[in-house]
């Protein structure tokens, strides 16, 4: 099963990299053979999702898509919290020998709080959107300028 999955990923990359030339493809394959997902990879994924979310908030006009981008930012935080608590849990005994007490369950607990905040934010935000649309007939953020001076 393991070998099959690695073969599938490798062949997908082979198809993608065919046009890119032999040297790059060979290096990519070597990197994939050595690759093990660690803390830095999860942080990179979280960073990418955060950047995409910020780009969505700053560049789109539709307020519903801006809300979805905010959900994306909150999820980037969640994956960071879970990855950190996973690696804290794996190193808990080592850290205790050095006299550092950690609680690795804080990560999932705070993830639950963030999910709750996201749900509350979506409920209130979409309520505001409905009331706004009823009064102003628009959900484009640059046309909502009642508070602008």
């Amino acid at each position, binding site marked *: 099963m393991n070998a099959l999955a690695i073969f599938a990923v490798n062949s997908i990359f082979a198809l993608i990299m065919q046009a890119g030339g032999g040297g790059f493809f060979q290096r990519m394959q070597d990197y994939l053979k050595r690759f093990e997902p660690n803390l830095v990879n999860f942080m990179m994924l979280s960073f990418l999702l955060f950047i995409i979310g910020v780009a969505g908030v700053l560049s789109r006009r539709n307020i519903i898509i801006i809300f979805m981008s905010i959900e994306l930012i909150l999820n980037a935080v969640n994956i960071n919290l879970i990855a950190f608590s996973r690696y804290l849990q794996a190193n*808990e005994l080592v850290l205790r020998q050095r006299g550092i007490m950690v609680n690795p369950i804080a990560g999932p607990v705070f993830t639950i709080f963030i999910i*709750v905040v996201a749900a509350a934010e979506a409920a209130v935000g979409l309520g505001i959107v*409905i009331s706004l649309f009823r009064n102003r007939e628009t*959900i484009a953020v640059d046309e909502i300028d009642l508070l602008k001076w």
Partner: protein
Amino acid sequence: MEKAVFIIFAIVAVGSALNLIAQRNPLYSALSLIGTLASLSALYVTLHAQFIAAMQIIVYAGAIMVLFVFVIMLLNTPEDHPEIEKQQWLRYLAIPFAAVLIGEALYVFREIRNITLPAQGEAEHAIGTTWSIGTNLFTQYLLPFEATSVLILMAIIGAIVLARREES
């Protein structure tokens, strides 16, 4: 196995997130957000956080996305100019700021890469089980938990007040 799962689902998550902000129709954006959330849930399983993975699917894909799709269908506004047209010069200001942010992130990643962390260490607690999360939630984090319930009550009342049609 963990390697293949990480690569596939990380690519799906980032691709769906890019599709989210690129789509014109908000409904397709909502579908892309579901793709991102589901692949993040699969990544939580590889991080041994099964309870959070299940909760991600149930709360996000089950509750929040239904709310989003409901509001999108209720409003149904076609979008003619998806991007903000004003203040084009801010785009050139964005380049140095983005360079600073990416440089900072790369510096942090480099620093962390030097600390080698084993993923398969001897673990005393399981971070993913309902038992361990519930025990911590109702002993050590009881006050934040109660504050959360007040927050939810406020959100419910606020949503009802905001979405109610004005009488008279």
